[in-house]
Structures are given as structure tokens and as C-alpha cells.
């Protein structure tokens, strides 16, 4: 009888946390794999238009972004501005920027470089047309109009 009586009080045993590191490591590896280091902070606010006939951009490392929209910081005015990498730029800077980006890449990758235009819905086409003319002059002919998935008829 006395063989089974408990000696003293025993609380609930603590939950083993030994597997916690494993779980955390699993999450860690997931995020390490999917991470692409953030290239540039947006300085202009962009709400992209909708479209249905979209394609995915294959290689992120071969895509250069041109952002166009109204500056987030209102000190820079309310007119749409162009942002290349981390700074505001003018239309005339684009050709030089394209050349710099091209020099950075391997010879084999150069024809695959895509320029993605992230443009706010409300921007007028004048700016976009100017950018496109500059891109043509710089021989950066592969472009992508960045959009959100959705019906294009809702745009207006």
C-alpha cells in the first residue's frame, strides 16, 4: 500500500522547451531562404493600377525599378517625381543610370535585364512617355508595367 503513496507534493512538471530552438531554426531557415534584401526605401507613394493579363518577373536580380509617384514627404512638393534606387532623379538621369546598372551585370545577363516601371495610377502619361523615350535611347527595351492583379475595368 505504502509503496504507491507520494512523498511530498509534486506540481505539474514544466513543459520541456528543448525543442524550441529547433522550431525557431526551422522558421529562421525559411525566412533566410525567401529573403531578398530590400533594395530601396520608397520615397514616393504608389498605388498601382489593376490588370489581368499579367506575367511574373522571373529573376529579381535582373530587374531595375523606376518609381514614379507623388513624394511621401510633402516638402518635395505634390507633383509626381521619379525615384531611381534611393534618390529622386530627373528624366535626363535615366540613361546614365541604365548604363551604370548594365555595367554592374555579367556580359551574359545583359540582354535579360528588365526595367520595371512602378507608376502611380494617377500619374499623367507625359512623364511615362518621357521615361520610355529615354529607355529607348539607352537601348533598355525590355520593360514591365508593374500592376496589381485585378480587373482593369475598375481602374477608372
Amino acid at each position: 500500500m505504502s509503496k504507491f503513496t507520494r512523498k511530498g507534493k509534486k506540481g505539474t512538471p514544466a513543459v520541456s522547451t528543448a525543442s524550441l530552438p529547433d522550431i525557431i531554426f526551422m522558421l529562421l531557415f525559411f525566412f533566410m531562404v525567401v529573403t531578398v534584401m530590400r533594395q530601396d526605401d520608397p520615397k514616393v507613394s504608389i498605388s498601382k493600377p489593376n490588370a489581368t493579363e499579367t506575367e511574373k518577373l522571373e529573376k529579381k536580380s535582373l530587374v531595375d525599378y523606376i518609381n514614379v509617384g507623388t513624394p511621401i514627404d510633402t516638402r518635395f512638393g505634390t507633383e509626381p517625381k521619379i525615384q531611381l534606387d534611393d534618390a529622386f532623379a530627373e528624366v535626363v538621369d535615366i540613361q546614365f543610370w541604365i548604363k551604370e546598372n548594365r555595367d554592374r551585370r555579367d556580359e551574359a545577363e545583359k540582354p535579360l535585364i528588365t526595367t520595371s516601371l512602378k507608376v502611380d495610377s494617377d500619374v499623367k502619361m507625359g512623364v511615362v512617355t518621357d521615361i520610355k523615350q529615354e529607355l529607348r535611347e539607352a537601348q533598355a527595351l525590355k520593360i514591365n508595367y508593374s500592376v496589381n492583379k485585378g480587373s482593369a475595368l475598375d481602374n477608372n
Partner: protein
Amino acid sequence: MARRPLQEINAGSMADIAFLLLIFFLVTTTMDQDIGILRQLPPPVPEDLETPPVKKRNVYEVLVNSRNQLLVEGERMDIADLKEGAKMFYTNPNKDPDLPILTRQTRGAVEENITLLQQALVKDPKNKQLETDLKKWKGKLSAIELIGEYDELPTSALISLQNDRGTKYAMYISVQNELSAAINELRNELAQDKFGVAYSELNPSVAEDKPKIKAIRAVYPQRISEAEPKDISGN
């Protein structure tokens, strides 16, 4: 002295270290997949280049003004109707005299053309023009072999898109999207009809699908041209 059993290293702080790294990667991660409409810009043209005259019926003219209104082939149109309009232009099912004349590509005619070109190439082996022509006709022949004889758009037929500097970007994207949608729908229908799969399901990196994609593109080529920029409405 008896050896004490080896003491285990305390791994309790491992989780903390891993957490630290985890939070770092969480913050730097951008998950957004970039999607968009891919387009190929035309190379810059020399200023003195003269454009060859094109028949009016072979051009589907789409104008967008600064008030985001559409003028298609000289008439006001709603954006919702643009897709159907573009499909009509590509197929011209009612033999409309204002839309392009499609010519039937028959196997016999194509084969004859290929032999003629080959004979000419034997006589004049350095002629680059003949070589490209031969390549084009061979492409047509392989398309016929895959999907049978088809009606072909004239080579000068194209959709011409022109916008004003004051057009809203969203409107421009809508128009581009509707024109792409028209072509994609026609291609999907044809692929479904001939191969039993949608055109969008065909994978260009699969060797078997490659000639199929080429054949469908020969029937419905994507010819959306953006005119040299100019002010349409003057404001």
C-alpha cells in the same frame, strides 16, 4: 578519483540567438511578387526614316485623349468594348471592308514558295533578305503542319495605340490590358481547339510545347505598336 560524467552544455540560450536572427530576417524580408505587363519597346528610329505607306484598313487605331476617352477607328468607344473590337480586327469574320483581308495559307502555296526561295538562294547565297524570307516561310509551313491551314493577317496589320500626355496612367494600362486580353483570348481558343490546352498553359521551356507556341503566334501575332509620342489634343 572517479571521473565525473561529462556535463552537458546548456543550450537554453540557443533559442534566443535563433530568435535574434529570425527577427532580423523577418524585418528584411520582402514577400511581394512583382507582376506586370511585359512589353518590348521599339529601338530608337533615325529621324529621317520614312515610314512606308500602310493601308488604313490594316491599322486598328486606338487613341486616348487627356480626358481618358477612347477613340477607336474614328468612333468613341467604351473601354469595355475594346476587347471585342480588337478581336474583330484580328479575325474579321464578317469580311468587313474596313478591316484587314485575311489570306488563306495553303500547304501547296507555302511549299512552292519555299522551293522558289531555295532555288534563288542557290544562285545568290549571300542574300540576307532571301534567308530571312526562307526562315519565315518555313515557320509558316511548320505552323500548317501543327494546326492545319489557317487565315493569316497581312504583315502590315497592327494595332496602333496613341495617347495624350495628359492621359492617366491607369487608363493607359487598362487599354494595354484589354488589347493583350483580346490576343490572349484568341490564342487560348485556338490552342484549346487544336491541342486541348489553353495557350497560357503551354510552357516555352518544354521542348514539346515550343513549336506549338510558335505556330499559335504565327496565326495571332502580338502587334501592338505605340506611335511616336505627339500631342493629340494640344493641351
